[in-house]
């Protein structure tokens, strides 16, 4: 993985979109209040201690950072416009993420909760399916493998067409 100290940032916000070090969740949440937002939704994707029946020791994330950062920023901007969000933040970890630690966080703030939830789910679904970020699962037995790929194209026949559980319209 390319190491980098200057991660891309979303327009008008100071939070990195990718982070090689643990995400400061408290600070991020604290930064997400807005006087016109009655609803703030935070999603934290965290390393589970098991995957497909095997005991997970930790994950390691690799990213094509310049593309991933630019894509996350674009997804946030799109969601902001679509749901009139007051705030939209996201940050994805690279490197080693221990069990119970946050691998990705998404925060959305909107006037009402319907929009905050819908936008939040939209952002995380797209980040997970579309951005060039990959996890390698390290198991407690010492083995490891590339994990949990998006396999939408087995159904859509197109690597750029994904299936999302929620209707995002």
């Amino acid at each position: 993985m390319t190491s980098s100290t200057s991660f891309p940032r979303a327009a008008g916000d100071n939070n990195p979109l990718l982070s090689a070090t643990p995400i400061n969740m408290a600070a991020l949440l604290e930064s997400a209040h807005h006087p016109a937002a009655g609803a703030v939704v935070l999603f934290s994707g965290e390393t589970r201690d098991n995957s497909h029946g095997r005991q997970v020791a930790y994950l390691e994330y690799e990213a094509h950072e310049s593309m991933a950062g630019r894509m996350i920023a674009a997804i946030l901007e799109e969601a902001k416009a679509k749901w009139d969000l007051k705030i939209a933040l996201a940050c994805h970890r690279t490197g080693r993420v221990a069990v119970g630690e946050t691998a990705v966080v998404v925060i959305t703030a909107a006037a009402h909760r319907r929009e905050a939830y819908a936008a939040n789910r939209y952002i995380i679904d797209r980040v997970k399916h579309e951005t060039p970020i990959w996890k390698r699962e390290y198991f407690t037995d010492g083995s490891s493998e590339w994990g949990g790929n998006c396999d939408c194209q087995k159904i859509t026949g197109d690597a750029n067409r994904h299936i999302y559980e929620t209707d995002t319209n």
Partner: protein
Amino acid sequence: MKVQVYAALKDYFEQEFEIAEPVHSIEELRLLLLQRNPAAEAIMPVCRFAVNDEFVDHRFQLHANDILHIIPPSSGG
């Protein structure tokens, strides 16, 4: 032409390498890589290609100075 691959693709190719042969499209590049390592057929069909950090389709015309990134299916989050 410089090629960079990620994640599971690194089981089949070096993380970064140069292509000296003249290839004119993504499709030609794809075939060349499968000649170099036929086992990559297991993953190549589900990969996306990016040139200069933009996704491109298989008909995309390549130039000698392009930087290619081959992107396996995402597994972020």
